[in-house]
C-alpha cells in the first residue's frame, strides 16, 4: 500500500532549529501535514487532541524526555502502535537498547542527512 504523503506527522524537539530542519527535510520528501511540539509534555497534549500517523522525536528534552514520551505513547491504548522514530544525539549502546525495549520503530543519530531520514522512514512506513 502506498504511503499517504498527507499523513499527519508530529515532530518533537526542544531546539527550534531542529524542528525547522526536520520539517524542511520532511517537506522535501513530500510530506505536507507536519505539527510541532517542543517537549514530551507538549507532544502528549497534542496527541490527545489529534490522531497522528507518525512521531519523530528527540530524546534529550526537559521536562519530559523523548524516551519518557515513547514509554507513555506505548502505555496508552490509543497510541501504542503509533510509529515512533527517535532522532537523537544520544548514541550510547544502552540508549539504543532502552529505546528498542520501549518500542521505538527506528533510531536516527544526529547529525543525519535527508537520505538517512528517508531510508529510516521507509523501513517504518513502507516505500514512498
Amino acid at each position, binding site marked *: 500500500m502506498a504511503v499517504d504523503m498527507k499523513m499527519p506527522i508530529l515532530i518533537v524537539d526542544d531546539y527550534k*532549529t531542529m524542528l525547522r530542519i526536520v520539517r524542511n527535510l520532511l517537506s522535501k520528501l513530500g510530506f505536507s501535514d507536519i505539527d510541532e511540539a517542543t517537549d514530551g509534555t507538549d507532544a502528549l497534549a497534542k496527541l490527545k487532541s489529534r490522531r497522528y500517523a507518525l512521531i519523530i522525536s528527540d530524546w534529550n528534552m526537559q521536562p519530559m524526555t523523548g524516551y519518557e514520551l515513547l514509554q507513555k505513547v506505548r502505555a496508552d491504548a490509543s497510541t501504542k502502535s503509533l510509529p515512533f522514530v527517535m532522532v537523537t544525539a544520544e*548514541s550510547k549502546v544502552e540508549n*539504543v537498547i532502552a529505546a528498542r525495549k520501549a518500542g521505538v520503530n527506528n533510531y*536516527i543519530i544526529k547529525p543525519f542527512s535527508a537520505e538517512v531520514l528517508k531510508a529510516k522512514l521507509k523501513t517504518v512506513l513502507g516505500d514512498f
Partner: protein
Amino acid sequence: MAGKGKLDLVERLTNECIDVCQAVLRGRKYLAPLLDPSFRAHKLQRALNEQKAAVGEMEMAVDRIMTAVEKMSEIDFADSGDAARRVAECCGEIVEACCFQDITGQRMSQVNEALSAIEDTLTFLSDGTAEAAPPEDQTLLNGPALPGSGMEQDAVDEILADDKGKQEALG
C-alpha cells in the same frame, strides 16, 4: 606596661593566625567538591572535551555551509532546469549542516554544568550563602558522544535489526 603591651600584641597575632588557619581549613572544605578526583577527571575533563568537540563541529558546519554557498555562486543559470536542481541540492546541504546547532548546544550544556559547579563553590567560599548542589542523576541521558566514542548509524541499525530478528524468532 611595655611587657603587657607585648603580651597583648602576641595574643592578637596568635588569634589572627588561628582565624587565618580556620579560614584556610574552611576554604579547603568548601573546595572539596572541586578537588574531588571524579569532578576533575569526569566533569571538568568532559567539559573541556565537549568544548573542543563543539568548536570542531561548528568549524565543519561553517565549512559545509560556505562550500554550498560557493557552489551556488558558481551555478550557470543559463540552463534553468539544471540550475534549479543544483540550488535545491545546495539548500539541502545548508539545512543538514544546521544540525550542528542542536549538537553543540547539548555539548555546551555540559560545559555550563561544570562552570555552574565551580560558580556555586566560589559563591559559597565568598559569602557562605549558597550550598553546592549535588549533580542531578540523569539516567540514560549522555548527550552527544565525543568524536570516536559514540555509535555510528550502521551500528545502531545492527542492534535494531538484531533485536527485531530475535523478536521475530520468538514471535
